């Protein structure tokens, strides 16, 4: 009887943790692959408008962003409307054409996602669109949030 007891005590009750790192690594690799590190700091405020008729862009590689909105100044103040492509503000709208044309050469299937602040005026949006037509980047997307039904 006593011998029986002793046997039970010596049995290891640990869960084998040797494969735990492998599981975690699998998760890690998934997140590493799916991560897109944010490489740009947006210098304009872009509160997107809400819409219902939305389509998703699955291929993130094809997308290039143009931000239009009031410039963020020090101390939470907002300045004049600015246009930003990648990480720099575009001072002269005529440059949009050359920048976007170069991007189109690199990626012929380019989709331009316009992230425009909802308070912006149409004038600047139409000017940018006119430049995009000149550059030949015709596929655009008015980025907007899903409408929350009230």
């Amino acid at each position: 009887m006593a011998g029986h007891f002793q046997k039970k005590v010596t049995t290891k009750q640990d869960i084998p943790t040797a494969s735990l790192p492998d599981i975690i690594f699998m998760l890690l690799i998934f997140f590493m692959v799916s991560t897109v590190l944010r490489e740009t700091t947006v210098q304009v405020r872009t509160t997107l408008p809400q819409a219902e008729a939305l389509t998703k862009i699955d291929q993130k590689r094809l997308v290039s962003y143009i931000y239009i909105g009031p410039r963020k100044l020090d101390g939470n103040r907002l300045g004049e409307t600015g246009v930003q492509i990648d990480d720099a503000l575009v001072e002269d709208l005529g440059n949009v054409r050359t920048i976007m044309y170069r991007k189109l050469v690199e990626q012929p299937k380019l989709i331009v996602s316009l992230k425009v602040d909802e308070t912006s005026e149409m004038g600047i949006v139409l000017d940018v669109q006119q430049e995009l037509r000149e550059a030949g980047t015709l596929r655009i997307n008015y980025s907007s949030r899903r409408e929350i039904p009230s």
Partner: protein
Amino acid sequence: MSLLKKKKRREAEIPTSSMADIAFLLLIFFLVTTTIDVDTGIGMVLPPKLEDDIEPPPIKERNVLKILVNEQGLVLVEDQPSAVQMIRDEVKKHVLNNGADPRYAEETGKALISIKTARQTPYDSYVSVLDEVWMAYFEMWDAEARALGYPDYDAYVTAIDEQDAENAIRDKIKAAISIAEPDAA
């Protein structure tokens, strides 16, 4: 003799229990920095640049549904003041008219929606108008898909993607939306 025995027993393993912790730290870092949210928005295709010597093709006045959005975000549909929610029905009536009502389009394939804004029009009013127009098209496509025996348009699209077939619904009801230039002030 006893010394030799001790040496044999020592295991040459690297402790792997902390490996999980290291991996966890990395995992948490990537979890925090990942943005999986997909970009959503209203897709449009801009018209190509016009050549100077080529005139744009003539379009009958009747086939164009003109929507005007002014500086205050107020909407005129065919010169009639209208609420934003009304646009959806107007677009549907216009596109599916097929010559019945002289105010709307002659046939579905020729119907065109023109959206014109002022330079000072706020962007969100423009998007809400554009959204309504697109919703009208989506609802018409849904109706077409149901007529073909699919639950909705999305199901139809996945079905034809599998068969590599042409999108017949989109060919029948083409989303023709034109964004007009504002008048020079």
